[in-house]
């Protein structure tokens, strides 16, 4: 039994799913994003990387409707061929109609609700319809009861995938950090997205939690859901992404496969320019790895 979106069919793989064109975002006098264009393809993991303050999260917020871009066009083409102009939709409509789900850099769980309830809230729109916008559900009709059961099954499915099934009845705020990350991703998956946007999913994870995260991400990609992720951890980016876009000061400086990007002199300069020993080291290791 699978609760994810239907398995992709070969003719849609590699299609353009998300197309960002000439995106600009201005905060007062600050140009956070300047004329950015890139694409994310269906069935792939696309990574958005760049030094701190490059505008990665701002791009995310524009795509998911939390910011209205100053200029530019963001087109999302769904599997059934329907197109949505994301910059014209409200934040909640982007998840509801355009099927784009997201997570947050600083985890935003419903900490006072249980893990299971978190996943049920994510199925709000489907359940709302099933409950006849509350009225039929209030009368206790069986249609809603079945839908509620199905929702719990779907939640259990993703809890299994996220290795959280044993904690289902605990408050979300009680989980350790890595588990909270996975729960947030599982919750986003329960909205039934075609594109999942992850904002630094590996930040602050220990190696074991990182591995568990990668497993979850592969599982999601195998369901046919495309992923767009922001990441600082180079090892994660290089290992799992199919396509990398590099930002610096709100502009794109490189775009291509992980191999292409890590050998791009512009990228190396951008990263070495940042006084962040850790990043430098990671890049150095990556470069050595590439030479051999």
């Amino acid at each position, binding site marked *: 039994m699978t609760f994810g979106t239907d398995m992709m069919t070969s003719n849609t793989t590699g299609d353009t799913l998300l197309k960002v064109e000439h995106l600009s975002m201005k905060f007062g006098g600050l140009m956070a994003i300047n004329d950015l264009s890139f694409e994310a393809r269906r069935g792939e993991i696309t990574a958005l990387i760049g030094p701190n303050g490059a505008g990665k*999260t701002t791009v995310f*917020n524009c795509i998911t409707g*939390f*910011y209205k871009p100053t200029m530019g066009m963001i087109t999302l083409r769904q599997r059934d061929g329907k197109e949505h102009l994301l910059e014209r939709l409200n934040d909640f409509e982007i998840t509801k109609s355009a099927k784009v789900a997201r997570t*947050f850099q600083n985890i935003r769980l419903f900490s006072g609700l249980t893990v299971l309830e978190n996943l049920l809230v994510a199925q709000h729109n489907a359940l709302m319809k099933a409950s006849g916008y509350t009225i039929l559900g209030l009368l206790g009709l069986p249609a809603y009861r079945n839908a509620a059961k199905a929702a719990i099954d779907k939640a259990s499915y993703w809890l299994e995938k996220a290795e959280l099934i044993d904690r289902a009845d605990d408050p979300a705020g009680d989980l350790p950090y890595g588990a909270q990350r996975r729960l947030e991703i599982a919750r986003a998956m329960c909205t039934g997205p075609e594109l999942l946007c992850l904002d630094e999913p590996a930040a602050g994870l220990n190696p074991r939690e990182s591995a568990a995260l990668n497993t979850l991400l592969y599982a999601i990609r195998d369901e046919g859901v495309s992923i767009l992720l922001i990441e600082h951890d180079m090892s994660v980016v290089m290992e799992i992404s199919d396509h990398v876009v590099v930002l610096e000061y709100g502009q794109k400086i490189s775009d291509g496969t992980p191999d292409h990007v890590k050998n791009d002199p512009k990228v190396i300069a951008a990263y070495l320019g940042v006084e962040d020993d850790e990043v430098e080291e990671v890049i150095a290791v990556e470069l050595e790895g590439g030479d051999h």
Partner: protein
Amino acid sequence: MDYFIQQLINGLTLGSIYGLVAIGYTMVYGIIGMINFAHGDIFMLGGFAALIVFLILTSFFAGIPVALLLLLMLVVGMLMTGLWNWTIERMAYRPLRGSFRLAPLITAIGMSIVLSNFIQVTQGPRNKPIPQLVSDVYHIGAITVSLKQILIVVITGILLAAFWYIVNKTPLGRAQRATEQDRKMAALLGVDVDRTISVTFVMGAALAAVAGSMYLMYYGVASFNDGFIPGVKAFTAAVLGGIGSLPGAVLGGLLIGLIESLWSAYFTIAYKDVATFAILAFVLIFKPTGILGRPEVEKV
């Protein structure tokens, strides 16, 4: 035109009083993010302190100069409310700091009920009238300005200047501003946060006492439930001006005073409070941070 200017003067007087009370709300809100619902009743307490001082002094020293009398009323009122607010903060608010957000709000509402009923029980439920303190009136053309009004505006002006100096130029003010920005960081850098917050409460109460004394002088009557309506209006003023901003509180107070007196003059007096509240609602809906408030950016 004369009528308009007359109303302007009346509004300014009333607005000064609201502004003084509003500062107490705005400072406490700024520093610990709590609506101190009992602040209106502290204002009422200040009025009562002044009333009692007035009664005692006039019965012992019949010929006491008015200026000295007023000064003593203000000083005793300020000391008294300062002590009260210090104790209240210490006993009822401090233990709840950093706890559940609604707990201090409920405690403050409870404290407001306690204070007004305490005065009702100890001083009786009837209105307390006092004779006119200063009755001089000046005429400029058709406009009448009473000495009371001049006093109120002048005292407010002096206090505001002193206050502005304390907040912006003294170490105490710096500690207050630091605590407001980031309490934990301020504590790490050696600011005595508890003391700073206590002082803020005392300062707010002292200003409310001045407002209370002047309210008593202006209307010549005190009552145990005087705290609520002026309190709500002063809070409205603080929100209107942008809560957390001192100039905003004064500006808000003046605006509320003007709206009230102009509305009463040109429309019906019955709906003057409706006008005040409606304007508050409109301002907040279209500019939720008030006139001088810092815009709040939604962090995602």
